[in-house]
């Protein structure tokens, strides 16, 4: 899976840009499969990407269009998918979002993630063997009925809380 270290992230969105460009040949935030949440008031930048969670909520696709690939990545069948948006609703952290009727989710670029290459700060890294380890159960209830953007914000806020506390205690003594 792709891991994130927010203490190193500058929020440059090179991961988004390169993800979008190498998948679609175009650049646009909404067609990136990794999305940086920028909480400017507290200086947090947090890339949100599929956590390959234990629960695999998105695989409850009514059309059976979603399966888990050998790398642990999510594979969506373009022929079976009817753009119903269930996967977007099911994902607790907003890692899947429909854009122009196509669901966008991290596919690990076949094992050589472009976002990792693009990040020159080491804030994103790839651990091929780590998947199915993180539980997103605690977010499921918290982010019910939220838009993918709001879900990502909640996930980023919660996940970066220890970092923020560390900063404050180090600099405000």
């Amino acid at each position, binding site marked *: 899976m792709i891991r994130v270290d927010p*203490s*190193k*992230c*500058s*929020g*440059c*969105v*090179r991961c988004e*840009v*390169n993800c*979008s*460009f190498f998948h*679609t*040949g*175009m*650049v*646009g*935030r*909404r*067609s990136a499969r990794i999305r940086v*949440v*920028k*909480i*400017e*008031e*507290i*200086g947090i*930048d947090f890339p949100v990407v599929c956590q390959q969670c234990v629960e695999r909520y998105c695989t409850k696709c009514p059309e059976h269009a979603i399966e888990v690939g050998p790398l642990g990545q999510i594979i969506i069948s373009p022929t079976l998918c009817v753009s119903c948006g269930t996967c977007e609703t099911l994902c607790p952290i907003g890692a899947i979002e429909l854009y122009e009727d196509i669901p966008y989710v991290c596919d690990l670029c076949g094992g050589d993630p472009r976002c990792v290459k693009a990040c*020159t*700060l080491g804030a994103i890294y790839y651990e091929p063997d780590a998947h199915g380890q993180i539980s997103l159960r605690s977010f499921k209830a918290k982010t019910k009925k939220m*838009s993918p*953007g*709001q879900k990502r*914000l909640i996930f980023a806020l919660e996940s970066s809380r220890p970092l923020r506390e560390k*900063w*404050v205690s*180090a*600099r*405000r003594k």
Partner: protein
Amino acid sequence: MLYGYSGHILRVDLESGRIVREKTDPQYMLKVIGGRGLNSMRMYEELDRHVDPLSPENMLLLAVGPLTGTLLSSSAYTTISGKSPLTGILGDSAAGGYFGPELKLAGYDQVIITGRADKPCYLLITNDNVEIRNASHLWGKDIWQTTAAIRKELGDIAVQVAAIGPAGENLVKFATVACNNSRMFGRTGMGCLFGSKNLKAIAVRGKGRLRVADTLKYAKLCNQLDQRILEHPEYDKRNALGSTQLITALNNIGILPTNHFQKGICDYVDKISGETLAKKYKVKNKSCFNCNIHCSRYFITKEAEGEGPEFETLCSYTSRLGNKDLKFALKITSYLNRMGVDSLSSGETMGWAMECIQRGLLSKEDFDGLDLRWGNKKAIEKLLDMIVHRRGIGDAFAEGTRSLAQRFGKGTEKYAFHIKGLDMICGDPRGIKAFGLTYAIASRGGDHLRAEPFFELTQRFDEAERRWGIREIADRLAVKGKAVLVEYTERLALLTDCMTMCKNIGLSMALMHPEFASQLLTAGTGLRFTPERVNDALNNVIEKERLINIDFGIDPSQDILLHRFVHEPLKEGPSKGHVVPIQQMVKEYYKLKGWDERGIPQRKR
């Protein structure tokens, strides 16, 4: 199908509420490229030269370059232009962040705003939907609050907002516009222009995607630039300190403005340096859209936090005013960012006042009893607040140093360090001669970014010999050849402004040149931007900017440096004994430009 360019120009008249969307004309863009070039050309063609800058008829233009928002590193800028309320001539200011790319995703290469709304409003741009919305509830709020409130209102924290603070509302002449809370369109008072139009903010939500013409070639070129950035010898330092490294660097060559340019060396430089800032208060790097230098920083202190500061702000509120307290400068940085005030211009008004007090030209009583001694933090803070709200003597300060010194007279004009009304940046020209020339001829007034002739600091003598046949160009203290350098880098600086790129890449790190730009532009836009066409466009814009300034009343008597920099040599350090023989340099520059001795471009075509 247009590539690179987003495809539309938006015209909004706040008075009538008329909103018009035009198609971007590729033939026109070939002549101006985009960004500052596009804005300046529109002003040249459409702006009535006699308008009062604060009147509804003045234009407010925002433009983004053709490759901004794509794969190209460090192309995140937006340029805001208009007739400057501070200087009365060509005004423009650029900032990075995430606003420009978003505007491109919303489908626009330029936004042209005229008129004045009858009550406070903000402009919401979402692709096909453009609305002028009520902002009465936002009036009075600072920039951070405004940004947060608009994002909350729209239910999306990814909305990009360019907003003004109370300073802009109160028509402080050097008020700024900010996006991403701390990315300042700092110079020439564009925030004041927003305020005069009752425009509190522009919010953008872009739903589109950007295409480039030759995807593979373009990706290859962008990769090349990325690699060159990473392999650059200055990369580590720029990444760690950003522009704040200049505090130490300028002090080392004896040109760090100290006590309002009375000295070029600061004894307490270690207390205020970028290194100290990084060690004590930085928590992590920050960055503009898609940049791999990540030169900005996030800081936290007991009293304040935020992104920044850049060198000019840091120096303006430390050595330039004799302040030794770095933490205080950081607090001021946050304050300026919230209120929307230019650090250079506000700092210069105070530096002028402090020097006038020191010299006994003016006294405490002239400044509402404020004790403007060097480094008096209480007085600085109080005066800033008075400027923002135009209270008491702050009202006069809010007009800028030129007007302030004229008001007081008594020889205080000699210490008002502005050129064409724009307050000078932090870098003593006596030790960097090409910069001196740049300040004098810059089309927006006393500013270095119009040419950023960084090459003179490199000591790359052989390269200077090879490129221009003049070795002295690589020697910062030499005069010879500096007009040649500035004539060249002025075009390069305009090129980066037209592509709305960062000057660090284009000039300081010397990673951009017209040939490479022409390849990028051609692969990106699909238009045939040959090196000759690019150069023609640049020359054309420089000429038009000069012509428009001549219409605004600029003549050679204003292409100058202040008395101190021409007649009083620096007293100590590695730049000791130096002044700038500016008259001779300006003359040489005119000649190279093909302008007559009155500084008027002569038509050859």
